[in-house]
């Protein structure tokens, strides 16, 4: 897929911007705080509908304004698409609206029309952070990949929230209602677990290969799905039976703890290097290389599943990596269709088809590669 144009209106530090983008590598170069990451954030929002930097959408609206809009025109396998995401101040919060080809659509129908793989400095948390960081990574990738996944996730989360409220005693205790919620959890949770299992299998293989290339086979990276509810086989029946049995087992402890204690909302993604935990024992360098491999794997799995290359977005990652790793990374995703990279300095050994954009105080100017 190819993003041909992005237009911003009162988004972050941009008043108005209308920018044509090139296939291949697009490099946004500029000093800090000029708007490089803001531009990348806007592009990512066209894919995921969310900011990769904040959960507080109001931050994306230019100071003193009420409405920020990000528009994009892209060519995907199915044809041309026009996407827009608008963030409007609404009382104390914000309201986001999405349009696809000029029609207002719901988030679930906007998500994943333009697929993006982002790699930002905070992704290094994937190795060292809590399981929630890795679950968020799985959810973000799968939600773009399978429309059904996002809906099941939303349904699952809502049901957990309702069940927790019931367990906390916001309404009279009701074992039958608890069973209704458990039944829904088993139904949607099974879908989540199966999707994660399939995705991680593909991811593990690609990550192991990428990691072997980075380390010249010195160490083996193993990526494994670590579900909270263990199951015998990745089939609907086996997973549903395991989850159902587990929920029955924990009825008493859930009542005591007033909270849902079992299910995919407690899953993990296990990363090990030659059999030892990367988060607990890996050096910074090892963690960094592993995350790099994971991101390359995410990219290649998404490309394979959609039979179309997603957009690759790298925010200030090249500067985080030493020259050799950065070069290895760009080589390893060398067959990307379109990539967007921010950097404070023009990277050395740019491909011939790269296009350079100088960003200075929210003005963007295309420049030939020297």
């Amino acid at each position: 897929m190819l993003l041909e144009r992005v237009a911003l209106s009162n988004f972050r530090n941009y008043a108005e911007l209308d920018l044509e983008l090139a296939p291949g590598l697009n490099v946004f170069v500029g000093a800090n705080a000029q708007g490089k990451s803001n531009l990348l954030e806007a592009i990512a929002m066209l894919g995921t509908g969310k900011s990769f930097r904040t959960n507080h959408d109001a931050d994306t609206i230019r100071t003193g304004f009420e409405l920020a809009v990000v528009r994009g025109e892209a060519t995907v396998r199915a044809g041309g698409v026009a996407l827009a995401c608008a963030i409007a101040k609404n009382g104390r919060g914000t309201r986001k609206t999405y349009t696809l080809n000029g029609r207002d659509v719901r988030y679930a129908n906007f998500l994943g029309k333009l697929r993006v793989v982002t790699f930002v400095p905070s992704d290094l948390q994937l190795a060292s952070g809590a399981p929630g960081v890795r679950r968020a990574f799985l959810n973000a990738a799968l939600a773009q990949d399978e429309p059904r996944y996002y809906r099941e996730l939303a349904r699952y989360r809502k049901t957990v929230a309702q069940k927790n409220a019931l367990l906390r005693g916001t309404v009279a205790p009701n074992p039958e209602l608890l069973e209704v919620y458990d039944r829904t959890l088993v139904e949607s949770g099974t879908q989540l677990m199966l999707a994660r299992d399939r995705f991680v299998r593909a991811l593990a293989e690609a990550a192991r290969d990428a990691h072997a290339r980075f380390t010249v086979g010195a160490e083996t990276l193993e990526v494994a799905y670590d579900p909270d509810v263990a199951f015998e086989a990745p089939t609907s029946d086996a997973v549903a039976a395991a989850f159902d049995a587990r929920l029955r087992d924990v009825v008493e402890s859930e009542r005591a703890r007033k909270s849902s204690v079992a299910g995919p909302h407690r899953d993990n993604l296990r990363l090990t290097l030659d059999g030892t935990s990367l988060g607990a024992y890996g050096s910074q360098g090892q963690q960094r290389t592993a995350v790099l491999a994971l991101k390359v794997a995410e990219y290649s799995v998404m490309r394979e599943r959609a039979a179309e290359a997603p957009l690759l977005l790298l925010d200030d990652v090249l500067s985080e990596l030493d020259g050799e790793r950065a070069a290895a990374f760009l080589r390893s995703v060398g067959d990307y269709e379109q990539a967007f990279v921010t950097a404070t300095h023009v990277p050395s050994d740019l491909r011939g088809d790269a296009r350079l954009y100088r960003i200075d105080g929210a003005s963007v100017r295309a420049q030939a590669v020297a």
Partner: protein
Amino acid sequence: MAGPVAALINEFSKLPTVGPKTAARLVFYLLNRPRHEAQSLAEAILRVKDRVRFCSVCHCLTESDPCDLCTDPDRDAATICVVAEAKDVYAIERTGAFKGRYHVLGGLISPMDGIGPAQLHVKELVERIGQQSPHELIIATNPNAEGEATALYLSRLLQPLGTKVTRLAYGLPIGGDLDYADEVTLAKALEGRTTL
């Protein structure tokens, strides 16, 4: 801003979906209309409050108790359609396709909002089924998380009573375009396909 104008803007902006800007527009519109129009609006609002009650049988809105829908001899008492809100009764009535009776729950189960079965007219439904033993109960709650949970809960609760419990079908909107249907709706429509 003058007192009465500000006061009315304030009143309007308490209404759902009405913000301060819309409220101001409504007020200035009314200021430009003749007095009798404003009076009939004010009276209509008061009439609703004074006269409209909930039917003691189906809990729908009514001026007489039991309501016209519950007392109409041409309506089939053996089929009861269960809905969340009174407005859903009007939606189904507009179709003209249903000739049974209704039961309004008064909301959907949502512990997050402090609404459990005890806060809804669920007990009354069970009693009603016990007294009237209908053939079929059609659950017509919204196809969202709360609607689904409520439907599942009711079907569980009512199973022992031996009444047939059905649920509205999921599917494609008529006149819609397959192309524009979202994937989940389309998948549900496939699951619920019927023989021609």
